[in-house]
């Protein structure tokens, strides 16, 4: 897979919590990637088998909102994206963007 700055930024965020389920919007916010960049990368990661997806286990009627799609690292993904995150500049690994991009 082609290594781009965006992919590294996403790898850093995913590698920080490798066993968690991640939502698209949260990933966008924490990695600083806009939707038009983030989702195509996630699709590529799905195709590569580095990430698997699923749907939140909630009752939409009870919660009052639809089920969100989550992304979770696979075993291969933990290794591959972990290695990729390790190549990231130190500033990227220690200070992911946590504030809204347009603030």
């Amino acid at each position, binding site marked *: 897979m082609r290594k781009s700055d965006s992919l590294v930024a996403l790898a850093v965020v995913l590698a920080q919590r490798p066993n968690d389920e991640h*939502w*698209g*919007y*949260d990933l966008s916010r924490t990695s600083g990637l*806009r*939707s*038009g960049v983030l*989702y*195509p990368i996630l*699709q590529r990661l799905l195709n590569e088998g580095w990430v698997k*997806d699923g749907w939140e286990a909630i009752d939409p009627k009870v919660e009052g*909102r*639809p*089920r*969100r*799609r989550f992304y979770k690292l696979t075993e291969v993904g933990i290794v591959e994206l972990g290695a990729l995150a390790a190549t990231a500049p130190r500033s990227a690994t220690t200070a992911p963007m946590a504030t*809204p991009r*347009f603030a």
Partner: protein
Amino acid sequence: MNIDITTTSAGGVLLVVLLTAALFGFLPRLATRLMSRAFPKSDPRRDEMLAELHGVPHFERLVWVAEQFERVLLEAIPARVAQSKKRREIWTVHVDGKEFRLSASRRRTLRERFRSWRYSAKIPLLSLSIHDQDDAGIGTATDQLITRVLTQAGMMTTPAIPLDFGFRISRIAVNRSRTRDEVVVSSDGDASESTR
């Protein structure tokens, strides 16, 4: 000249409230719903886009919606183009069997699970139509199709072909090809296929 400040400001406030509600509440939802429809019907990104909106704070929604427009241009339209190039298949499955005849009485279930269905008491067959454009490929194997029909109809939970059903399956392929296949599966599971 006298100006009624009270009335003017009240009207202005009301206008601002309505505009705010429209800009940050109603319009983003409407725009997201419309944009999500650009993705093919079975694409999970369609539901994902709608669900994500609920997690976006109201004051960020306008920017978020604008970003989704970029997704539509970069992802949804190419997906639609790729889909239109695929051959569209319409399968009609005629099923005969005691259990299936009983299930035909559960009309609401069938209506929810199949795009079209028809049951005739005179001809003891149930016709179920499946449009296979969204998940092309499954129709290529007869046993997979039968399994899918029975599973969708609530007649089967394990992937195995039961022996007490009779099937007549028609495949009509449109776009690119005008082939029409007929597959007849007898109750003992043997299949014969012909292409016209």
